[in-house]
């Protein structure tokens, strides 16, 4: 059905364009920025491509953004729990756009609110996974030369985006006056300054938290210091069997390595795309359509269907008309 695939791609692109153009007016009526509409379109297209139901056809202008968004998009399924605190702040931000008096408060809130986060990843000591975080700064009336919302992309180690202590760190970092000043700079400079600021801040806090766990004074149980075999009296009901095997290891590095092993399989489950053909074939083959006529003679059924979309073995097909036979 190769020719059909090209048809399907074209049809989908057409539908996306039609929908986006049609709702543009509705978006403007509600006072929502065009940038959100564009984000909707890009996220929609990215998900389509990552679903592998059709062949990707991308505009060259969108590819660079798409590659970044795909990376975060694939991990987006696990963002829901981590995002509980941030969307509330972002909701208040959206309702109070250009209030000059709230500029210092609004900006960091927008930064954390607009950030797309990744799943829990290895702590900083071994493999550091950086996640591109897009900070969208809403237009601020009080800042000169900053009339449109701009997007700054910084790379944040994934563990910093976790909830709890680590997530609060990120918020504090982004709330500092230095950051606020940086956000008013042009995009490239702001990106560099922010990136350095985040790196410095996180390195110092990571070093601090590690020394804390070594001392064992005030034990941080989550974030970089998370290790269930640090203290014997700390019992974690969620332990996997793997962690029980490593009870002999008291070294923090080994514990971190073991966490890597635990978290790798966990993270790999977050992957939405399925490359394995045997898994791909498990999809629920669905045909959504309209019927012209359904007839039955004894136990022989005949179907006359039209205007349908099919998802068979993970791939999408469309038809104008379909006729079928089956025996009950």
């Amino acid at each position, binding site marked *: 059905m190769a020719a059909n695939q090209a048809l399907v791609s074209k049809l989908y692109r057409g539908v996306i364009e039609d929908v986006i153009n049609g709702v543009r007016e509705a*978006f403007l009526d509600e006072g929502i920025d065009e940038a959100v509409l564009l984000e909707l379109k890009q996220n929609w297209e990215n998900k389509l491509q990552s679903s592998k139901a059709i062949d990707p056809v991308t505009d060259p202008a969108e590819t660079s953004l798409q590659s970044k968004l795909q990376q975060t998009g694939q991990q987006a399924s696990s963002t829901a729990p981590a995002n509980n605190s941030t969307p509330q702040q972002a909701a208040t931000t959206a309702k109070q756009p250009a209030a000059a008096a709230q500029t210092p408060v609004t900006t960091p809130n927008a930064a954390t609110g607009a950030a797309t986060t990744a799943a829990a990843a290895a702590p900083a000591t071994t493999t550091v996974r950086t996640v591109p975080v897009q900070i969208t700064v809403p237009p601020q009336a009080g800042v000169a030369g900053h009339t449109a919302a701009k997007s700054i992309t910084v790379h944040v180690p994934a563990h910093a985006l976790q909830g709890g202590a680590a997530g609060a760190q990120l918020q504090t970092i982004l709330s500092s006056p230095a950051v606020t000043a940086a956000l008013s700079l042009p995009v490239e400079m702001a990106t560099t300054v922010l990136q350095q600021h985040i790196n410095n801040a996180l390195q110092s806090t990571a070093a601090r938290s590690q020394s804390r766990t070594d001392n064992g004074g005030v034990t941080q149980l989550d974030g970089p210091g998370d290790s269930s075999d640090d203290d014997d009296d700390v019992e974690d009901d969620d332990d996997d069997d793997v962690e029980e095997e490593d009870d002999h290891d008291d070294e923090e590095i080994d514990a971190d390595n073991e966490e890597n092993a635990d978290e790798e399989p966990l993270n790999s489950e977050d992957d939405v795309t399925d490359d394995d053909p045997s898994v791909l074939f498990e999809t629920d083959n669905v045909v959504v359509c309209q019927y012209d006529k359904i007839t039955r003679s004894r136990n022989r059924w005949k179907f006359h269907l039209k205007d349908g979309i099919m998802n*068979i073995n993970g791939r999408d097909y469309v038809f104008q008309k379909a006729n079928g036979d089956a025996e009950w």
Partner: protein
Amino acid sequence: MAYQLYRNTTLGNTLQETLDELIQFGQITPQLALKVLVHFDRTMNNSLAQKVKNRLTFKAGKLNTYRFCDNVWTFLLSDVEFRDVSELCKGETVKIVACDGKAVPPTKDD
């Protein structure tokens, strides 16, 4: 309002997921998301009626179940072969959900 049938397709589900994410971030309101979905329904129905031209046939080994409720047919077939002129694709189990092609869906002016 056209049939909401096509919301449970790759295109429809990805749109709903994207809209849900935007609502979560507080970038759009649920009412706006609903408007987008309604527009999607209309566009989808029109596109399928006008832009798609191909026909195909299928043959199933067995019809496992059939259901007709609220003018919607739902079939579960097994061992199905779909044929589009020269090309073929097979499915072990296929679910068909079909709305009435002749009825005029209830219209609601937004």
